[in-house]
């Protein structure tokens, strides 16, 4: 599955799509395929603060629970309610199924994130290593 070139990526396998001051966050195709069937997503509440590189929730598959790391700092403006009943949407369409939206408090944090090419290089290193 291609990695959208307009997204930015973390080394913890989250993506962020920026639209003005709002960043939409999800997990990558690589993350969903490593986790396997996702059965539950634990997310913060609207209004909660998230911090770059800190956990903001977790995603549970049949074999593991993994933390979700925020690519940026800011306040949660929306959560994807659809995931409460259909968490497997992440497996089906990881790059369009978002988890939370965040209003960025420090857009400069985006600069340290990976672009699609760098992220693909990073995961190919991780898989071969």
């Amino acid at each position, binding site marked *: 599955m291609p990695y959208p070139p307009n997204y930015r990526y973390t080394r913890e396998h989250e993506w962020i799509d920026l639209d003005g001051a709002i960043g939409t966050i999800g997990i990558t195709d690589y993350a969903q395929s490593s986790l396997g069937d996702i059965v539950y997503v*634990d997310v913060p509440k609207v209004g909660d603060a998230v911090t770059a590189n800190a956990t903001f929730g977790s995603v*549970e*598959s049949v074999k*593991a*629970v993994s*933390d979700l790391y925020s690519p940026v700092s800011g306040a949660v403006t929306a959560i994807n309610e659809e995931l409460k009943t259909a968490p497997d949407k992440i497996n089906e369409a990881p790059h369009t199924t978002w988890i939370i939206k965040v209003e960025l408090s420090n857009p400069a944090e985006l600069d340290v994130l990976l672009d699609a090419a760098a992220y693909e290089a990073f995961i190919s290193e991780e898989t071969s290593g």
Partner: protein
Amino acid sequence: MRYLPKSPAERRQMLTEIGAASIDSLFEVIPAEYRLNRDLDVPRQQAESEIVDYFRAAADKNATGYASFLGAGAYRHYRPVIIDSLVQRGEFLTSYTPYQAEITQGTLQAIFEFQTMIAELTGMDLANASMYDGSTGAAEAVMMAVRVTGRHKAVVASTVHPEYREVLSTYAKHQGLPSTLVPCDRETGRIDLRALEAEVTNETAAVLVQSPNFFGVIEDIPAIAAIAHAKGSLLIVSIAEAVSLGVVRPPVEADIVSMEAQSFGVALSYGGPFCGVIATKEQYVRQMPGRLVGQTVDGNGYRGFVLTLATREQHIRREKATSNICTNQALVALMATIFLTVYGKEGIRELAEHNLAKADYAAKTLGSQPGAKLLFNAAPHFHEFVLQTDETPATWSQRLMDEKIVGGIDLSRWYPELKNATLWCVTEVITRENIDTAAKVLAAAPVEA
């Protein structure tokens, strides 16, 4: 099984293998002053017959034939003999934790049935496979409420078992979890609802109460739940006496029920092992500590049982696990399962009613003796009550011992403000004769000259 130590030849062989000249040279790194220079002072070996004599003599020192009015979180109930016959079967007694579902269906099914019966009794959606005991269960329930609410303060009733509160303090000390204590009403022995309302704030993660409480009083759970929920706090109800659920309305308004299941067929055994339980509503299942057995179907469509939601347990999620509990009290929970199966729905109710009736008779009889009165008598009780006497408990308890009766427990060790007050517990194993004898002894205070 052989417990024979290594032979001198084997020791030499091992020393040669690792290149040490002697045992002493092996331990040379330990400074000489810390080394023991003589043989351990242990008695000589004994023949089997001598060992049997030794333990028979020790067993004779047990105080047998006493009637006991002690309760306070450890309850003496009759244990049907089938419990020990079944739990001593090797398939249960020696089986390892049921990670491998294909070889542990019996253990898993027994745990599943335990969970089902506990959930039905407590009025919750589901129960876990058991905790260590009622005290750690209550502390874990508070930690669970912290995870669910994202808040970090607890409000605790002073009538929660004092030892449960001590265990909670130990947990809380290292978790940055302040808790405040709410006193009870002097007449009813129930939590003071006004004081509770004043303590619960928008920062309260959990309100923890016990019902029947430490004084045997049944709390007004719907009223307490309304106060907790109005501020977004969870309500945890701790139950130290599981048999009470035969007659007491289950705390359905609670978010988490933490229970000690020892009364269900578990011997007192000098303090343990006991069997804790956490039951909760389905929406909180992912924050519940401990393990859960679920029912499923196998590849051929047959009913089967597996550990479920184990992804949050410590053996998989390490330091991020919901709790450091990695196992459950499988064999002790099995005792409870067998007990509940033997008694059945009607049997548990009859047993509870039997306890209630005897305790009521005892409270009335003992409470009407000269120099004695009942405390906290303005609210309903289960099978425990507080008796205050003019005499000190130490005085009459010796007279009771002479009649082979152990009286109520002195409350001053936990509640210094309660002078000459004792907590009495009356279960089905206490006879009417025991109660009448105790009353006579209490009435027989030496006349002051």
